[in-house]
């Protein structure tokens, strides 16, 4: 049930994000979700794409520093309190969140949140036990 996320190291200078998206476009890779975390000198671009392995290879071949990590995609009702319910489960079980980002649409009446947690297997087990919908990689890539 894990989702592969691609992370790319970017210096904070103009044209870097353009370069990444150009490579992905040329390789016919479609971006499903993205987020950027930045500091004063660098940023980390995190991507969910339709073909993670291919994207990883292509970016690496173009000289980017890339890593592939496992994240969890959680589907929740797109309504007030939807995220709060998931967070309550996380909190109750001391699942430490490294970062998260969300995207809406595509799933009927649902929102998707991507979580990066320390202990992914444990998190998956608990979320499923609590009846929270966790999407598979294949499902997310093909959204």
């Amino acid at each position, binding site marked *: 049930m894990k989702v592969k996320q691609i992370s790319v*190291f970017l210096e904070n200078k103009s044209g870097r994000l353009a370069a990444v998206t150009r490579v992905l476009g040329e390789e016919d890779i479609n971006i499903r979700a993205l987020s950027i975390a930045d*500091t004063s000198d660098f940023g*980390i671009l995190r991507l969910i794409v339709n073909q993670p392995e291919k994207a990883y290879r292509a970016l690496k071949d173009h000289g*980017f520093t890339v*890593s592939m*990590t496992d994240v969890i995609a959680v589907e929740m009702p797109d309504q007030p309190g939807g995220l709060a319910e998931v967070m309550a489960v996380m909190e109750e079980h001391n699942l430490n969140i*490294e970062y998260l980002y969300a995207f809406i649409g595509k799933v009927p009446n649902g929102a998707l949140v991507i979580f*990066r947690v320390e202990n992914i297997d444990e998190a998956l087990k608990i979320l499923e036990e609590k009846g929270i919908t966790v999407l598979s990689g294949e499902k997310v890539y093909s959204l």
Partner: protein
Amino acid sequence: MYWNEKYECMPREQLEELQLERLKATVERAYHNVPHYRRLMQEKGIEPSDIQSLEDLRKLPFTTKNDLRENYPYGMFAVPLSEVVRIHSSSGTTGKPTVVGYTRNDLNVWAELMARSLTCGGATKNDVIHNAYGYGLFTGGLGVHYGAERIGASVIPISGGNTKRQVMIMKDYGSTILTCTPSYALYLAEVMEEMGVRPEDLKLKCGIFGAEPWSENMRKEIEKKLPLIALDIYGLSEIIGPGVAMECPEKNGLHIFEDHFIPEIIDPVTEEPLPYGQFGELVFTTITKEALPMIRYRTRDISALYKEPCSCGRTLVRMARVSGRTDDMLIIRGVNVFPSQIESVLLEIGETEPHYQLIVQREGSLDTLEVQVEVSERLFSDKVRRLEELENKIRAEIESTLGITVKVTLVEPKTIQRSEGKAKRVIDKRRI
């Protein structure tokens, strides 16, 4: 004004006689007491008795920092440790430190040379000398200190740092002579301005600045901001410390105290001596040092020698202010920095060959060092916190190795220029 007119203004012929006599004694002592020198001289087929004129100096082998390292710690000493009363040393982060020793007489000579240097800048026993050179293993602080005491001036051993307090003390204690690195002098001036202390609140008349290369423009800037005449002092611990040469108010090159050191300029590649007036690598032979005689020590500093007498009356040969280095050593805020030191820190952290670049700039009056490191796949993490921890770790390791603050920036791979031959590790943007 001279401290020791007899030697500072000695007729050339007489000075050269004295040099030859002292050179012979030094070579004799080095040959008999330092196995390293004996071996090198034997390899070249030279005996001490072959030194019959000052020109014969050329027959002797060179000494480098490497020789000091290979004989670490005391192998180059020409006296037993029981006669050594002081030890100074470099930080030794490029490998083994360079250890230098002084006998009681060596300290005496050093104090004499520093007394001459300070007097060159107008110091008398009535002066208050604000000594902001670092005290410790570095030779700057104690060198000035003993010279000031020799003159009988009042020395304030303030050392570096705590700049606001320095300004307050300069003002309240009526410091008349400032000794520090030129970049620190500019920083003092800036802080003074911020504190609202005006130049006319100070009694400074002369600044004696060294331990890093500086330019005529920097002199003008210092003199504009501080009420003093700024003079250049030169020295290096391997030779004795500060006080090897000193500029007089004519500002026409630095007088080398030739009754203790014989200077030469060589072509750093062919190692052939160059004539007066030509720039090349500065080489010194000490002719009175007891604990650590140096024969033809290659300083790596680039300068030129001038023989014409100076209008100040000193007959000593003058050297041009140091204009650069023959190796890749950087001097940042008075601290010697070799790119290899940074490389070894990065190697330890990354366990693989790092690509890095050093950017040196002067912000305001202070030198800054930025270390750009290419982030490799192995170092990369998708968590910002981890990357910031990595930057901090590199920064802390470099700072503890070099003793200066640096900025570490992670950059993308392949963004640092590669070169076919020797990597260009340093971009020096300073205009000095």
